[in-house]
């Protein structure tokens, strides 16, 4: 028979493993550079997306297109080797216009999420990033 002390010990053991920082599950976009909906005056060298979970590089993709739907990225989208929550891709020199970033990622909890956003490169002030 289970004693009251046993039940209390079990409850304490279970409660002790829980802290305030639980996993949110599924990888959601946390932040991006260039930021979502932003306007930049310098053509960015790359797009970087940070997610709320670690990503599986085998099934995480990222690409960037211009207003006409032409690819403007370097085709080297990858999960950062030192930070598994970061997905990055290089860009060609961008002329002024609106660009769409399209991503689809698989987190290590085996769930996929996808999304897209745009950023603008402003006319008249564009210069290559150092």
């Amino acid at each position: 028979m289970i004693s009251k002390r046993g039940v209390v010990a079990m409850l304490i053991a279970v409660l002790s493993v829980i802290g305030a920082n639980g996993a949110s599950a599924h990888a959601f976009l946390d932040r991006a550079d260039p930021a979502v909906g932003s306007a930049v005056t310098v053509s960015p060298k790359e797009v970087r997306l940070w997610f709320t979970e670690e990503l599986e590089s085998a099934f995480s993709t990222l690409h960037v297109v211009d207003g006409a739907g032409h690819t403007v990225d370097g085709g080297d989208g990858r999960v950062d080797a030192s930070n598994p929550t970061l997905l990055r891709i290089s860009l060609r020199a961008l002329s002024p216009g609106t660009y769409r970033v399209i991503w689809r990622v698989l987190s290590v909890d085996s769930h996929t999420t996808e999304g897209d956003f745009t950023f603008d490169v402003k006319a008249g002030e564009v210069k290559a990033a150092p």
Partner: protein
Amino acid sequence: MIALAFGTHLIATALVAGALFFAAAILPGHPAPAASGREWLDDALARLVAFGLGATAITALLWLWAAASEMSGQAWIQAASVIPKVLIATHFGHVWLARLAAMAVLAGLLTVNRPPNSRLRKGIAAVFGLVLLVSLAATGHAANDSRGMLVQGVHLLAAGIWFGGLWALRLALLSTGDTGFAHRVTERFGFVALFAVGVIAVSGVLNALVHAPHASMLLGTDYGGFLIGKTVLFAAALIFAAVNRWGFLPRLAGESGQGYAHLSLVRSVATEAIIVMMILLLAGFVATTPPPHG
């Protein structure tokens, strides 16, 4: 589709783990008198576990295929070509392969030792079954967080002991007209099930708090709907458990053979097991649905 594949895999795995645990830890160590039908029971439990293990293997393949389809974004037919990549290059694939190995070892153990005839062998088989079940925690929402994985593992462990144990208890009751044996086995399982239900409730609440810290986050979302459905079914199963424990069990003592209370208990245990099976199926949807993102 992946929710159904995972849900049925969870049901099959829980059946195996719980039935093996029942055989090792709930059934009395010494063979009951011949009248109790112990030989029939051992054979029936072995067949139940073999059925569960076969279902575990088939549903594992379906789950892998569904996961490959989901991960690649391709239709089922095309997704077959992606399965090797899933197995080699993802955390899910590595866990899946490890679990396949555990399944093979368990199948081997049960084949060379059918039915298991020593306490130690039954214990080893039960440990493998429970590990197979608990390892599912490494593939779901908790896979990113070690503490969450531990809580989820405990949640799965308790659910398996409850669910598989109910089906095994039903067989134990059907095997005998010995009311003393029936009373003893039901009472022993009742204590374990009570503990398991408590663990399920606590770990379930903790899991829910991790993914949806505020109750309002559950309203109007698929995740919340599945979780509320699980809770309602859990409450229904508890009602049957209470009727079994405090309604039918005391009345067994006044009967001889398989009387009204005995057969009522068999039916009620089966009903409770079916409700728990529905909970596990819903768990497949909870595990594959994005939690509210606040």
